[in-house]
């Protein structure tokens, strides 16, 4: 774990691992050690084409260059700036050429090298779309491109890589109108500084411009460039942490805002939900007080089983009852029959005894008197009507006695059977009662089954609990006090720590740069200059003639000198301290355009010349309309000079 991560972790009060993880997740890079500077050198620029319109004729220009000061001089509007712009365009991949000039030029070829690795950019503009190739190294590795965007992308990737540049992330706040609904901390967006922006460090033009470095002063571009050139350690880290923190805070603010809108959109308040939940829980508790579904189902099952058992037993009892009743009935029938037979036996016996004692007096058929009947003379014992003999011996009464005894036995048996039948009937009746009870019990058990509504009320409780929790979470998000999240704390700590380290590292460096700017600017003609103070965040304080002013407040001529001085100073200090990363190529356009005195320009050029000689690997290509000065100061082999009124190409 690095010293930086440990410091951040300590500040944020969390573990080193956690801090490291958060920093990595938010892409906060450590830049305590800067890569070594790289050198960019233009070897040859050549282009062909055809002029049209007022000027005509074939174009075929080429210029071989090397380290040191180079110059092209011609009258204004004779193509000297175009040469610088073509060089810049091919290195950059993005167009900055005037339309008519571009129309004239058909094929361009730029030979250059980075740290002695040669590369060639070739562009053909004759087709519908721009085409070209980037050929790199001694192996002549060719990367083709078609169209401006691809050209820009290929050159950007190549230069960023070869020059060891890092994409710089910055934060640009939205304007007030856009950030109206959150005045506390306006929203903004991350901007990335890449090669098209960095490439401004190669060019210095005498156009109306407030920026010390680069195209404009806004968006932190200048700041980025400055830090880039000076090579201040930890600036990348600070910018990364700052951008990540802004992004995180914006997303937090956005989340809170959305949560608030969400809350307003929802009808039910927390209180309403709580009341609903309380009611639902009450219902659920009532349902809970009843038997559980399992218990109720158990009870139903048991009641049903008992009913089934009783029903089965009842069927047995009914059958038994029928059997005993039938037995009883059969016995009774026999008893009645025997009683009737006994009565008949006894009555007949008795009646016969009485009638036997009587003496018939006549024939029952014809009423003839017995005296006149044929059997009248028979003995008293014979029937005087039919003459039959009287039965021998006394009448046998044993049959009646036996029957009577049998009837007694039958009566007892019948009583028994009757009792059994009555018991069977009672048993059946009792069984019927039990069955009725069991049936009632079953229906009671079934009624006790928790209704569907009981289940629904449980589901309702669960649903409301979920809704309430969600609602509370939404309120927490919406009403969250500005408590810092761990991530915020870590990023803040990282930004502060990086800032601290940047300041510590930059204080000395910026002092050196400021002194160097001051020296160089004086050499470039600002004789009254007393002190320069370059601040880490960009502003350049200028003290001249005992009064303090700023870069933006001085004259355009002074601005140009300060710009050149700054570029050179950053370059020289960076080189001597080993932390600057300027590629060492400067394109200075119309160096004397702001000047009215030739001597001043001569001074600038001679100073540039000696600065180039003092600074190894520096290549400065200048363009000026002051032909006399140029030819005076610049050796002929380093100068392209067009005759008065003639074009450079």
């Amino acid at each position, binding site marked *: 774990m690095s010293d930086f991560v440990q410091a951040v972790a300590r500040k944020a009060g969390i573990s080193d691992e956690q801090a490291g993880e958060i920093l990595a997740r938010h892409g906060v890079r450590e830049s305590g050690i800067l890569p070594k500077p790289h050198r960019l050198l233009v070897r040859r620029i050549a282009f062909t084409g055809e002029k049209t319109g007022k000027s005509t004729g074939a174009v075929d220009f080429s210029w071989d260059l090397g380290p040191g000061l180079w110059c092209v001089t011609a009258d204004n509007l004779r193509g000297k700036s175009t040469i610088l712009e073509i060089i810049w365009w091919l290195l950059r991949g993005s167009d900055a050429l005037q339309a008519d000039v571009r129309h004239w030029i058909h094929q361009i070829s730029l030979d250059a090298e980075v740290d002695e690795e040669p590369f060639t950019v070739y562009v053909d503009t004759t087709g519908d779309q721009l085409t070209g190739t980037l050929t790199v190294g001694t192996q002549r590795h060719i990367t083709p491109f078609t169209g401006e965007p691809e050209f820009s992308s290929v050159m950007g990737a190549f230069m960023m890589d070869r020059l060891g540049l890092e994409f710089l992330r910055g934060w640009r706040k939205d304007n007030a109108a856009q950030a109206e609904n959150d005045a506390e901390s306006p929203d903004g967006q991350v901007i990335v500084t890449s090669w098209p922006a960095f490439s401004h460090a190669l060019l210095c033009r005498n156009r109306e411009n407030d920026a010390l470095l680069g195209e404009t002063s806004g968006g932190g571009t200048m700041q980025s460039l400055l830090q880039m050139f000076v090579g201040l350690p930890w600036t990348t880290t600070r910018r990364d942490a700052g951008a990540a923190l802004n992004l995180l805070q914006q997303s937090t603010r956005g989340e809170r805002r959305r949560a608030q809108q969400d809350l307003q959109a929802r009808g039910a308040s927390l209180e309403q939900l709580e009341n609903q939940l309380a009611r639902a829980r009450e219902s659920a508790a009532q349902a809970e007080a009843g038997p559980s579904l399992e218990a109720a189902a158990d009870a139903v099952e048991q009641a049903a089983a008992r009913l089934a058992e009783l029903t089965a037993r009842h069927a047995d009892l009914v059958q038994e009852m029928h059997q005993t009743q039938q037995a009883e009935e059969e016995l*009774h029938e026999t*008893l*009645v029959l025997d*009683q*009737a*037979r006994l*009565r*008949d*036996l*006894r*009555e*007949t016996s*008795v*009646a*016969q005894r*009485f*009638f036997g004692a*009587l*003496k*018939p*007096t*006549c*024939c*029952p*058929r014809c*009423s003839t008197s017995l005296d006149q009947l044929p059997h009248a003379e028979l003995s008293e014992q014979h029937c005087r*009507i039919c003459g039959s003999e009287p039965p021998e011996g006394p009448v046998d009464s044993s049959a009646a006695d036996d029957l009577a005894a049998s009837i007694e036995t039958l009566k007892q048996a019948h*009583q028994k059977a009757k009792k059994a039948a009555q018991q069977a009937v009672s048993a059946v009746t009792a069984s019927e009662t039990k069955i009725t009870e069991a049936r009632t019990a079953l229906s009671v058990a079934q009624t006790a089954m928790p209704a569907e509504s009981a289940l629904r009320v449980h589901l309702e409780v669960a649903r409301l609990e979920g809704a309430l929790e969600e609602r509370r979470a939404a309120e927490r998000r919406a009403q969250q006090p500005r408590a810092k999240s761990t991530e915020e704390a870590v990023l803040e700590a990282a930004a502060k720590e990086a800032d601290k380290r940047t300041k510590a590292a930059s204080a000395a460096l910026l002092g050196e740069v400021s002194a160097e700017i001051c020296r160089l600017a004086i050499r470039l003609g600002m004789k009254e200059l007393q002190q320069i103070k370059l601040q880490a965040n960009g502003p350049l304080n200028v003290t001249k003639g005992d009064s303090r002013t700023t870069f933006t407040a001085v004259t355009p001529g002074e601005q140009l000198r300060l710009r050149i001085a700054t570029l050179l100073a950053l370059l020289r200090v960076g080189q001597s301290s080993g932390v600057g990363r300027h590629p060492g190529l400067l394109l200075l356009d119309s160096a004397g355009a702001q000047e009215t005195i030739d001597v001043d320009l001569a001074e600038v050029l001679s100073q540039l010349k000696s600065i180039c000689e003092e600074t190894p690997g520096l290549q400065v290509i200048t363009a000026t309309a002051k032909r006399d000065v140029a030819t005076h100061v610049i050796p002929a082999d380093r100068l392209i000079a067009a005759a008065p009124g003639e074009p450079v190409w």
Partner: protein
Amino acid sequence: MAEQEGVRRASRVQDAVRLLFVLDRCGASCGTDEDQALPQGAVGVIRGQKRLQALDFWLRNPDYLADELLNQVENGSAPDPESALTQARDLLDGDEPDVSRYPMVRWRFGAWEPLDDALALLFAHNLIAVEAVGEPPAKVERWDYYLLTAGRDLAAELRADAPDLAWYDERAAIVLSVAGQRSGSQLKEIQYGQAEYERTVWKASISGITERVRERLARITGQPVGASE
């Protein structure tokens, strides 16, 4: 005693005893009517076989007899409702309705059974006399059955000395109290109207109407009636 195809039949002497008591108890007195040519020694008379058969039916079907008692209790014609109810209860008690029942065949215009043998037995012993009214043998309007002195004497003797046969006498007394001196046609109408439904089927006449009458009695008296032993 005789049983044919499951139908109980009384013995001839039982028939004779029963008819003797019917004549003794239910016959109309005839001793004072000097104008009429009466058989010698006649003390009572039942005029018409229909009346004799109707009286016999009630005597040998105690459930029908009890039912008629209840009719009279309900229509107010019973002279002594209390005793009528007691009599009905006794008639329906226990196995009595079954044991003292001798089913009759449903014949043409009512219950009927050939009584010739039993009457012959009584006649041969000079206990009764049977007279044809009209111009016999071609045209007999009615048969009259006379109880003779010897018949009354035998009835008195049986009443006193044969307890097994006493119930015929008691039952005949109840039959008289129910029937009075109404004619055979009148009695037949009563019986027929009442028994009409129960006798549509031959078998029904055997089983009788005991249970129905028991329920009716229970309703009237508010007390359970039956073979409560």
